[in-house]
């Protein structure tokens, strides 16, 4: 049974989004996703400053058996990426909602994540999968 923190919102492509106090958002992949992918060996993150559209492929996570695209849950500009992941991609497996965060975005519009799934909806969605 994978963890799904209730205070985050989720996408159908298994990304999570956390609103930060300063108005920016933090993004990562869910516990379910990291479990499915297996041990991650490499993460390719976007350049800081890049503008993303909602749903745009913006990163790649590579495990021993697959390489998966990560999609921006909302439109925004990349403020920061988790540089620790270059040396330690396994952080995403060990701590997908904390130390395994992928990037922080400045949202293009406020409250744009209202369209994302709640933890409850994501739980139901992930169960079906």
């Amino acid at each position, binding site marked *: 049974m994978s963890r799904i923190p209730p205070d985050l919102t989720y996408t159908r492509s298994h990304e999570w989004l956390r609103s930060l106090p300063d108005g920016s958002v933090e993004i990562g992949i869910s516990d379910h996703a990291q479990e499915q992918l297996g041990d991650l060996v*490499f993460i*390719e993150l976007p*350049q800081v400053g890049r503008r993303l559209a909602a749903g745009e492929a913006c990163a790649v996570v*590579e495990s021993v058996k*697959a*390489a998966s*695209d990560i999609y921006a849950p909302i439109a925004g500009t990349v403020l920061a990426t988790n540089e620790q992941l270059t040396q330690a991609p396994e952080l995403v497996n060990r701590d997908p909602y904390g130390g395994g965060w992928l990037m922080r975005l400045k949202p293009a519009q406020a409250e744009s994540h209202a369209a994302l799934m709640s933890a409850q909806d994501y739980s139901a969605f992930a169960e079906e999968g």
Partner: protein
Amino acid sequence: MLALLGVRDIEALFDEIPASLRSGELAGIGPGLSEQQLMQLMRERAAADGAPLCFLGAGAYEHHIPAPVWSTITRGEFYSAYTPYQAEASQGTLQSIYEYQSMMVSLTGMQVSNASLYDGASAVAEACLMAVRANRRSQAARILWPRTLHPHYRQVALTTAAGQGLSFQSLDYDPVSGQCVLPQLAPDEDVTALVIAQPNFFGVLEDVNALTDWAHARGALVIAVVNPISLAVLSAPGQWGSRGADIVVGEGQPLGCPLSSGGPYFGFMTTRLQFVRQMPGRIAGRTLDLDGRPGFTLTLQAREQHIRRAKATSNICTNQGLLMMAGTLYLALMGPEGLERVAQACMARTEELVQALCRLPGVRAALSGARFHEAVLQLDRPAGPVLQALAARGILGGLDLGAQYPELGAALLVCATEMRSSEHIERYAQALGELLRAAPTPVPSGPIDRTVSA
């Protein structure tokens, strides 16, 4: 089965291929030849090639191949080995790929190599596509390359990159030295990569340090296109300028591969570790198995199309295993000293050839730049008929440069490798001398040399 597929006949399965590309029947060859008849036919056809004395280079070079290369290569274990997908059943193949990669890294002064590509031309195309992916700063997908990069390499890259949004700009060469001339660009013009050919198509050596530093100062990556034999005497691309080249490619044919009327050959590609995930082609890596014992396997496969599909670095999912093996054996047998001797012999022979031919009235060396093992010679009459007459005397005199470089006038690209002895060179000089004396020249545009003897 045809009925099941709902197809009227076998031919209908080939409907997608345009009629203009279908070869139809083989002219003059009846159906159902016996093995004996076929062998006879092939022998007669092969003999038609003759065995001319070769002074032709232009991308493929005749070198001595030590006997153990092909006696080893034709062993069944190497000759018919398939791609080593299953590591536990392919340690020999994988180890030989790893040895090849190690040698190419050492030869080019870079950090990682792939398992080889199809040939030099497609390797250049792949390098351009790779540079566009790897240069994250650049948005332009714009490649600068010299006109003195092999014309076939440019043509293949244009064909390959046509659908991928790359643009290519040609750089001219200095008509006196034959070296590449850098363009005047606005300071903010976005260049993704600069291709440097060393030696260039004319055999001339470029100022690679200046070119490399110019490119890097503009935020462009450097793609080095090099002759592997020349690397025994020239500085390795990893040492060019203050940072070294970023991607190194070239034609591997000179390493243990016979001319074979144009192929098969192999292309090599090496790069820096930071770009390894953008590199196309197979990569063999060394690792430990479950019991902690060393072994080899294909690695970084998430770049390749069987995992990444449309987002793979390339559609290549193979390597030129047999020819790569020939190259590896050649390098192992020759060693650094042997390779250096081959390179120096080639340079000396070419110098000897140029001297011998330029002694003839009506022949002059066109370019003043230092050269490796090829030279451009200008004649006092069209090159085509001269080459034909030489061919009739069993001499491949060189390449007519008229089609690709008309500004050079009547010009030949000549080459002498370590395979051309002084006797061979004397034979060429004699034959050319006779031809030039026997036929009248066209009216000269400059002062007539009245000292020419009849």
